[in-house]
């Protein structure tokens, strides 16, 4: 989300899901909502029924791609080239929104200069997308009254993920497609509370509410509330902590509800780091790959066992409610309080609603939110005051950057960190299927779901399958420079030639043994979406 934060001010979706049915032109980029966000896809389907034009940017022939007016089946890793190309077309044809650019943005000169380098001949070569399609996509998007870009992890899970998001912002800004209902940029979040976890500041550079730890005023505010000095030094990202652990320079980690030993890319390195720690505590509801490395395992409480809130992908804060008592006796918030108290910092709350009151007092974007209000309504932040209704559409008159202007970012195509070659000729794309979720620890314990989808399947194009002389159900060995796994094959047109697809739901066939260690230098987000593999019978 650092991409949108840099360009527009906040790392968050700009609009509401409920506005989607009124979209005139939808640009779906690196997102497969019918599988990964089925209920968002219902809104988008309504938009299509209402006559919205559809542009899909995706190397896979997804449900939406099949129904697209224009399907840009770009080769993985060429997002920036494609978006620069579209902006180039728009500027060349004079389809840009001149008034919006003049009044509400800065840095247009540099962008203009940069995208001039991306003529369609070059873009066609970099992306494999025919130039007619790029022109048509640029025309449909720029000419629409209400145009929305919806993007997913296919944009962010690249080593250029942050820049990819900035390139998306460039396109929207050039056309002035921001700050109006049904017009903006929606990032679809992979996990239930990605937005909230970012908002509430378990981040090395920011306190809750994106207040920088290097800002002395912010530090003062938290020092006053929490009664101890705040470190002005930016902390370590998770990947950095793990890297230092490998070198023996980092000693102890408390992991709450994460499974880096399965879900991080290049899990070999992660596992080495975890086993190098002197002390590791993992709190989770199930044993995972990561708990294997723990010195102490604490039981977690599932969402049914505690009160709290989640913030969804459209910044909407909603309640979860305790339906049953915690199976192991305590919810996580109680455990953190007890541990802090034992370590000499007394922490206690009667109920999570008290924690929310503290959040509201320290986090301006959550300033007006309380459990009392959430009983009657759900609120989209920013909601700075008790009488503020919340915000459905961001940036209606100002961007949340200094000066209120959005910033164009001049970006270069860099491609994927690892590209196919003679030895490893296929691009492996990883992602989700509708039936399962992440490391599978929840969905693999649903009997009916396991009856439907019991194992990992490698999706491969019929052409490639023919070449490799493999058919549906055959077992193959998929190898990258880092490891190999054995999986059954599903021959399907959903994968394009030279691309294959795996999920990451099954520890028996762990696709993250294959994925590369390349990551986005700004956020540390790994390049899950593209690495080179070979396939043998």
């Amino acid at each position, binding site marked *: 989300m650092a991409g949108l934060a840099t360009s527009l001010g906040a790392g968050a979706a700009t609009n509401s899901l*409920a506005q989607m049915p009124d979209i005139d032109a939808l640009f779906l980029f690196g997102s497969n909502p019918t599988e990964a*966000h*089925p*209920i968002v896809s*219902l809104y988008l389907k309504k938009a299509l*029924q209402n006559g919205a034009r559809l542009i899909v940017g995706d190397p896979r022939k997804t449900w939406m791609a099949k129904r697209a007016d224009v399907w840009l089946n770009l080769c993985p890793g060429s997002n920036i080239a494609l978006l620069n190309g579209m902006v180039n077309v728009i500027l060349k044809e004079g389809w840009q929104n001149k008034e919006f650019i003049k009044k509400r943005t800065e840095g247009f000169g540099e962008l203009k200069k940069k995208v001039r380098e991306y003529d369609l001949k070059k873009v066609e070569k970099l992306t494999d997308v025919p130039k007619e399609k790029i022109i048509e996509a640029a025309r449909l998007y720029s000419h629409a009254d209400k145009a929305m870009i919806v993007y997913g992890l296919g944009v962010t899970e690249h080593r250029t993920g942050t820049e990819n998001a900035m390139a998306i912002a460039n396109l929207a800004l050039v056309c002035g497609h921001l700050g109006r209902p049904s017009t903006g940029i929606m990032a679809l*979040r992979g*996990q239930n*509370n990605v937005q909230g*976890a*970012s908002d509430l500041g*378990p*981040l*090395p550079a920011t306190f809750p509410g994106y207040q920088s730890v290097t800002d002395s005023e912010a530090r003062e505010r938290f020092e006053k509330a*929490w009664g*101890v000095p*705040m*470190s002005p*030094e930016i*902390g370590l990202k*998770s990947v950095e902590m793990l890297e230092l652990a490998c070198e023996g320079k*980092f*000693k*102890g*980690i*408390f992991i*709450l*509800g*994460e499974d*880096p030993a399965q879900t991080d*890319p290049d899990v070999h390195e992660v596992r080495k780091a975890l086993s190098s720690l*002197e002390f590791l*505590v993992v709190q989770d509801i199930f044993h995972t790959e990561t708990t294997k490395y723990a*010195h*102490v*395992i604490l*039981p977690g409480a599932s*969402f*049914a066992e505690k009160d*709290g809130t989640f*913030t969804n992908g459209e910044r909407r804060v*909603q*309640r*979860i*409610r305790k*339906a049953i008592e915690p199976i192991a*006796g305590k919810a996580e918030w109680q455990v953190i309080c*007890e541990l*802090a108290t*034992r*370590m000499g910092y007394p*922490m206690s709350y009667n109920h*999570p609603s008290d924690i*929310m009151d503290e959040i509201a007092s320290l986090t301006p974007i959550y300033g007006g939110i309380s459990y009392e209000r959430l009983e009657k309504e*759900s609120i989209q932040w920013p909601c700075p005051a008790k009488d503020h209704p919340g915000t459905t559409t961001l940036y209606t008159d100002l961007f949340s950057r200094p000066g209120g202007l959005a910033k164009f970012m001049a970006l270069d195509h860099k491609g994927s960190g690892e590209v196919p070659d003679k030895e490893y000729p296929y691009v492996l794309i990883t992602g989700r299927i509708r*039936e399962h*979720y992440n490391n599978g620890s929840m*969905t693999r314990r649903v009997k*009916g779901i396991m009856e439907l*989808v019991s194992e990992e399947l490698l999706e491969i194009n019929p052409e490639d399958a023919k070449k490799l002389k493999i058919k549906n159900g055959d077992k193959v060995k998929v190898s990258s420079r880092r490891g190999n796994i054995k999986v059954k094959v599903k021959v399907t047109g959903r994968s394009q030639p030279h691309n294959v697809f795996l999920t990451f739901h099954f520890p028996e066939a762990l696709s993250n043994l294959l994925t590369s260690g390349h990551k986005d230098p700004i956020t540390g987000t790994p390049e899950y979406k593209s690495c080179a593999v070979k396939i043998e019978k």
Partner: protein
Amino acid sequence: MPGKKIKKIEIDGRKISCEKEETILQAAKKAGIEIPTLCHDDRLEPYGGCRLCIVEVKGVGRPLPACTTPVTNNMEIRTENDTIKRIRKNIISLLLSNHPNDCMRCEKTGDCALQGLAYRYDVDGSRFEGEQWDLPIRDDNPFITYEPNKCILCGRCVRICNEVVMAGTIDLVGRGFNSMPDTAFRKPRSLDNCEFCGQCVSTCPTGALTDKKARGRGRAYEMKKVRTTCSYCGTGCNFDLNVKDGKVVKVTSAYDAPVNHGNLCIKGRYGYDFIHNADRIKTPLIRKGDSFHEATWDEALDLIAGRFSGLMKKYGNKSVGAFSSSRCTNEENFLVSKFARTVFKNNNVDNCARV
């Protein structure tokens, strides 16, 4: 926009203003006036199939279906009179004439719209005699039980599958008395033809479509319903956890949910088994060599506090850190953030929002 202007109407003597193009049914619902219907679901386009929602409109010589009739200015509506009551009784009697009427053992009892209307209008299945369906129960899939004998052909399942989900799993198959909702070639539901979102179950007004996993595990009125937010993806769907005897036995739709209006996917509706799974970690565990042994909370927390304090003393406070998770609540993430800064006294805290 046409129809945007305010219209004033009167329902059962109550003056109501409608802000936009609404049907009589919508306007009544907004005003808290209930009109009976079996084929309507707010998630679907108006259908006008069951004819139960007929109302009297002043100046119109015949009853009009409330679900498909738009309001017009100064419309005067009566939701029930003797004629309409008689017609409604007839319709319900006809539906019951080809219905098993086995409410005492039916999964849907207490939550069945047909049963509710039969009670309200004091109708049983004895008035008309005729041919009856005698078809087997179909449940050769993990999640959805179909009892065609209980189908009243309102078409809601077919419409939600095609209009809303666009999955095209079921349609009305056959003709006349033999028509019924079914899959293509009447094949069992599988991933080849069905998404198992259970949307059809969520809209079925009778016991024809029910959640297989929850059958026999309790009546609707025995359940404690707890409104909550789904813990899978970031869409933020609400639903009701149905709890009986301290166990989550079922998920039901929250039709007034701001994000999903009662719609759910396979994971949201059927992915709750993990809550009571036997593999859940039930006590703190402390490593001894290659294995773990069970411990009390006090033992575990004392050990953790001691070990982290020791590491901070020996290697400095920058040698420790915490990972939080986008799976956890806002409150927990806030506390982890606070914990690192007040207890570890550093900013070594991160979450998987980046991975």
